[in-house]
């Protein structure tokens, strides 16, 4: 890329590659991501850190889709009110999605951004993948 040296220090770090963590369907249709550590991240991130992030995400999605007394009550109430109740109340799933968004932002700030990585919220990719963007590591280069 034809860029001046001075510009390189200040512009957005270029995207080096993207890693896609696919869905794990072994437990059925529930939203669950594979915890297998992608090898592209080996130089940037701890395997344990990655697995912890994905496992927490999986637990949060499981909480959103859980069948239990609370979700049945919500469903039943919604049916009785001809589903108009959702005009003023958000569903349990939506509440958990907000929690997940906060979790991802938190993880990005604390763990991923300092390592030149960026987690994309799976909801922005239709819950198909967890997209991890790897940025070119310029911080080490500028010292030389």
């Amino acid at each position: 890329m034809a860029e001046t040296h001075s510009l390189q220090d200040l512009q957005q770090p270029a995207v080096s590659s993207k890693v896609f963590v696919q869905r794990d369907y072994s437990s059925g249709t529930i939203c669950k991501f594979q915890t297998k550590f992608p090898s592209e991240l080996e130089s940037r991130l701890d395997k344990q850190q990655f697995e912890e992030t994905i496992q927490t995400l999986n637990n949060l999605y499981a909480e959103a889709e859980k069948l239990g007394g609370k979700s049945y009550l919500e469903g039943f109430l919604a049916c009785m009110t001809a589903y108009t109740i959702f005009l003023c109340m958000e569903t349990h799933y939506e509440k958990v999605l907000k929690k997940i968004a906060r979790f991802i932002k938190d993880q990005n700030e604390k763990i991923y951004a300092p390592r030149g990585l960026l987690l994309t919220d799976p909801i922005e990719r239709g819950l198909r993948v967890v997209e991890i963007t790897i940025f070119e590591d310029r911080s080490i280069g500028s010292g030389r």
Partner: protein
Amino acid sequence: MHLGESMRECEYSQISTRSSTPMETPYKKRTPKRRKWEAFPGRNKFYCDGRIMMAKQTGVFYLTLVLILVTCGLFFVFDCPFLALQLTPIIPVVGGALFLFVLGTLLRTSFSDPGVLPRATPDEAADLERQIDVANGSTGYRPPPRTKEVVINGQTVKLKYCFTCKIFRPPRASHCSLCDNCVERFDHHCPWVGNCVGRRNYRFFYMFILSLSFLTIFIFAFVITHIILLSHQSGFLNALKYSPASVLEVVVCFFSVWSIVGLSGFHTYLIGSNQTTNEDIKGSWSSKRGKDNYNPYSYGNMFTNCCAALCGPLPPSLIDRRGFVESDAPQLAQPTNGMTMYGATQSQQSHMAATTPLPSS
């Protein structure tokens, strides 16, 4: 330090690294912001600025609406006054409630997103293509149908690759050729409601046909009652002359009852066994296919299956119709050296190996 020197040389202001959008260009965007529904790749129609989503062909839906409105309208205008006076005013009240419920569930089924899966982003598609090429061994011309096998609850399920959406379809998803979308837990495309029936609107569809069954039987029964009561007063032929609307209602209800009640019964069976129409027609979990063939998604008992289908959590729409179309996301930089590609290929091979079980096992 280095940064400070650079800033003195050329007066660029620091750009926030927190946003994921690319470097902001000095010129203003020429095009106004579009909502995502305007750029939606499927064959759907949107109304109310993306709030309402339907299939392309909606003619039959309007027919359904007209049939329901006209029949109920005639019932309330011509039969209810007589019945309320002769029998009880509860009849029009119950009829009214049923009618509103039917209408509500119909509109909810027709207007909501059935569970459309958004198509893969170019980066995702490229990544998947690379993985598949590595697994198949690169051949030029016509790639063979791509499938991935996964074991769910002891049953081997084949996940198919969708060439249109460029994704591996989740289990139970199917591509609707009429709407040109992959839909989660695809049941069928219903022209009567003018939409696909999938994960997000199946319960509304079921409630619609169930309440419509009750409404149809209700109207049929009370119109017959009306005619019988009138016949006692002034003879059968005079009764028909006094209330010609009743004849039309009886005809419509008679033909509807068989189909609607039959459909309700069929869907009750499907819900109880946690199957989709698609699976039932294909006989995916039929015992005829093999002794060990069973439905891996069933919860074991009918009650739990029903609760799960009707009262389970309602997943949100994945397509974000009313969001704004962002400018192009940062594309992958071209690999500058052979090392990146080699590393990527290796990980994909191991990745594919993990997901596709060896045939010998």
